[in-house]
């Protein structure tokens, strides 16, 4: 096996939504600087937006809403636990991002007068901007990465951040095709590896039938943790209302402006707002358990032309195999509601709130380490938030490295990591990663899927701890299998964090995301705070309360409670 050494100024791990933007912005900030994107797949079609996006979920467009209103809405929907300054950035810079994307050729829906055609999906305010022609988003970003002369190394997966003298100095990983060991020295590292999307096991039992792009296995959560950075809100799981079995968005955001809505089996609405939130998920859960289920996205009352228009959008973008799925079942929007189900759990700030702690500059608590996108802790950040924080990470990293030199990584650490990575290759007859992963994720379902029960979570935690040894049974026969094995390591780390953080916060919050049977009420007195975790000096997982930063936009969270069902 060969070792490849690389050197760059700013290393970006993960060339998805946030990563490509971070690279472009770092090059714009200093065209002379060297920027390298390290990507497990190929940036042309990688990550959540591999096939584009149905729309922007959080567009703050002047004349329609203000950053302050946006911060208010997210504060209320996230039950008050957030760093408002960070959320404010998404509200403030989102519009510039949209304009810049547009100048690169990304098409957003406009009305006849050429104004952005925003739709209301949130409880208050219009923030959803459809992009019916959004399928080429990733190619457009790839073109800009090339034009800005950022370097790209595809098909290399990072496994650890290199740390020395208390700061991030690079990353290690391996080439998932030829197996080379890869060491990259950098002055700053930006992690943009997306969600922890392979945590729970989909009800179908198919490991890759996840909502998130299954390449995103929580790599960044785990890497940041091992680097010594803080993570937060991990107990605020991501759970989505998805097309049953298909596990993709139905997608109410697209269809509801056309008149579709979420309904119970009788065809009646039971929630007043289709915007995804823990509170909404709790209502869905209750409805399913009330005997009025299953829950459906209802379109049968709409006319042929409207349905045809919805179909063109849904079947060309984002998850274009949706059409094939319905067809295979002999179902049709004209005659059938789209049956929905509660998804398995995941971690993702893009949709809920868990991630690596970042401030309004995209800095983690580790000097030289930045994070952006679904793995950085800015709640409900979605695609525009990923772009905004990619941009912040890219520009601030360039500032940070101004007077820095490269540091030689620790030879001992490299040797140890090499041994860890390649261990499964020494056991070609070991248990296959598919089985190890299946069992791990089944345990996640068994013990962590809300409603959260104290004793169950404790059993879960014990299992996850013990699973360290199980990982040592895993065998790989080629670099591709090795990639999957290393992903299982990340998944285990995320499962342990999810169990510990959930046990730590002794109250219920965020609707179904953190619904604890033993503590069914919200308790602002004791728990109006973040639950953060990090690796302490002895290598143990350490949890603690971190106060919520002072608000910059006034919201009385005692009286302004997020509600989608009560009249």
């Amino acid at each position, binding site marked *: 096996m060969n070792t490849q050494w690389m050197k760059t100024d700013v290393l970006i791990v993960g060339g998805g939504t946030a990563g490509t933007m971070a690279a472009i912005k770092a090059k714009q900030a200093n065209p002379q600087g060297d920027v390298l994107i390290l990507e497990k797949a190929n940036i042309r079609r990688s990550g959540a937006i591999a096939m584009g996006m149905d729309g922007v979920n959080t567009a703050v467009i002047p004349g329609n809403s203000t950053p302050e209103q946006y911060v208010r809405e997210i504060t209320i929907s996230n039950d008050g636990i957030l760093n408002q300054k960070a959320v404010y950035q998404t509200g403030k810079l989102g519009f510039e991002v949209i304009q810049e994307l547009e100048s690169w050729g990304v098409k957003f829906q406009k009305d006849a007068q*050429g104004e952005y055609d925003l739709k209301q999906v949130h409880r208050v305010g219009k923030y959803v901007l459809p992009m019916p*022609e959004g399928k080429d988003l990733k190619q457009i970003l790839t073109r800009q990465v090339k034009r800005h002369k950022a370097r790209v190394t595809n098909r290399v997966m990072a496994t650890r951040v290199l740390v020395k003298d208390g700061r991030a100095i690079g990353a290690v990983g391996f080439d998932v095709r030829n197996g080379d060991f890869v060491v990259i020295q950098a002055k700053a590292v930006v992690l943009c590896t997306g969600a922890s999307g392979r945590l729970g096991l989909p009800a179908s039992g198919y490991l890759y039938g996840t909502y998130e792009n299954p390449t995103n296995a929580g790599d960044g959560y785990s890497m940041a943790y091992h680097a010594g950075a803080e993570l937060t809100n991990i107990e605020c799981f991501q759970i989505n209302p998805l097309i049953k079995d298909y596990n993709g968005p139905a997608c109410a955001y697209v269809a509801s402006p056309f008149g579709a809505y979420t309904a119970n089996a009788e065809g009646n609405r*039971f*929630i007043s707002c289709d915007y995804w939130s823990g509170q909404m998920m709790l209502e869905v859960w209750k409805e399913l358990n009330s005997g009025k289920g299953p829950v459906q996205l209802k379109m049968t009352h709409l*006319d042929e032309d409207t349905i045809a228009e919805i179909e063109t959008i849904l079947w060309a973008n984002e998850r274009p195999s949706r059409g094939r799925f319905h067809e295979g079942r002999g179902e049709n929007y004209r005659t059938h509601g789209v049956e929905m189900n509660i998804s398995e759990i995941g971690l993702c700030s893009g949709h809920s709130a868990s991630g690596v702690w970042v401030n309004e500059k995209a800095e983690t608590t580790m000097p030289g380490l930045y994070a952006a996108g679904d793995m950085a802790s800015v709640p409900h950040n979605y695609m525009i938030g990923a772009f905004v924080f990619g941009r912040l990470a890219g520009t601030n990293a360039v500032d940070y490295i101004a007077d820095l030199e490269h540091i030689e990584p620790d030879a001992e650490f490299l040797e140890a990591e090499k041994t860890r990575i390649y261990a499964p290759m020494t056991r070609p007859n070991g248990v296959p990663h598919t089985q190890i992963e299946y069992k791990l994720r089944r345990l996640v379902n068994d013990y962590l899927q809300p409603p959260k029960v104290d004793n169950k979570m404790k059993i879960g935690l014990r299992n996850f701890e013990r699973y360290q040894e199980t990982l040592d049974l895993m065998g790989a026969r080629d670099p591709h299998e090795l990639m999957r094995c290393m992903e299982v390591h990340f998944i285990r780390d995320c499962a342990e964090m999810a169990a510990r953080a959930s046990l730590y916060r002794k109250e219920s919050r965020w609707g179904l995301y953190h619904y604890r049977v033993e503590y069914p009420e919200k308790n602002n007195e004791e728990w109006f705070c973040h639950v953060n975790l990090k690796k302490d000096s002895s290598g143990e997982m350490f949890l603690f309360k971190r106060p919520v930063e002072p608000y910059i936009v006034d919201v009385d969270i005692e009286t302004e409670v997020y509600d989608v*069902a009560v*009249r």
Partner: protein
Amino acid sequence: MSNDIDSELNQWLEMLQSSDLSDRLVAVKSLQYLGDEDALEPLIAALGDESLAVQKLAVTALWELANPKAVPALLECLASPDLEIRAEALSALGELISPDRLLLLLDALHRDDLNMQLNVLILLRKIHDVQSLPYVLPFFESENAQLREAAVTTLRYLNQVERCDRAIPLLSDPDDSVRRATVLTLGHLVDSEVVPRLCQVLTSDLDWQVRRNAAKSLELHADPAAVVALELAIADEHWQVRKFALQAWQKTPDNRTMPILIQALTDEYSDVRREAAKSLAALKNPAALNALQQSLDDPDRDVCIYTQRAIETIQAATKEISNA
């Protein structure tokens, strides 16, 4: 490193000239991935390849290069006999076209080719330039319904056009889709006949989508003169007409409509019931309270929420008056 790229580029450029179709396909695809500006001219040349598959990939590759120099060549593809090539070229141009290409587009509009004319009418919507008006108008009298529809839709996108009486006769067009488009365009025009004609269409057109669109346009006009027609439409046989008529009515609430609104509270469709509740809220008339109370246990949660809000609004308004 740049040497590598050059030799890679040259390798594909050479292959693009091959007589073997599979080689040319691989070459054009690879050039698309490579995204090298130096491939621009050869790719433009490939638009004339004898294989439609190569042509189509060349369109995609040029789109990804996004170099405006490719616009005239891509424009030619709008008249291609192949539907997929036309569609791909239209999307590409939708992104690449800029206002300084207006003359080029207007020129192409004169070409005696249905596909070219249709696609150019669509592209003119991206430019929003009122200068194209005189070129668009003659299509209102075209023999071809698709062209009439495209032209009257494009009219909606031309900024600064406030009046255009030549559009009004299209309200009696024999083709449903032309009338549907015309009615929407009239939502943005202020000629004096517009509102009366929209009212007429709202209550008499045989196509429900025309009637629904008329309601949408009347909402934009928010003209009290439309109330009588809207009242009739609130009892239309199609629920979408009822829903949008209620929404339009909310712009100019009128107490005389109350009995019809109360009836709509029990409509079969929840969207209509919800709009009825909103409408009663807009009236702030306490006489509606009884009917609203009964809607509080509507099986649809949204209807309940809006009914509750309506009751609160009316009660608050009544209190204000009695306090005054």
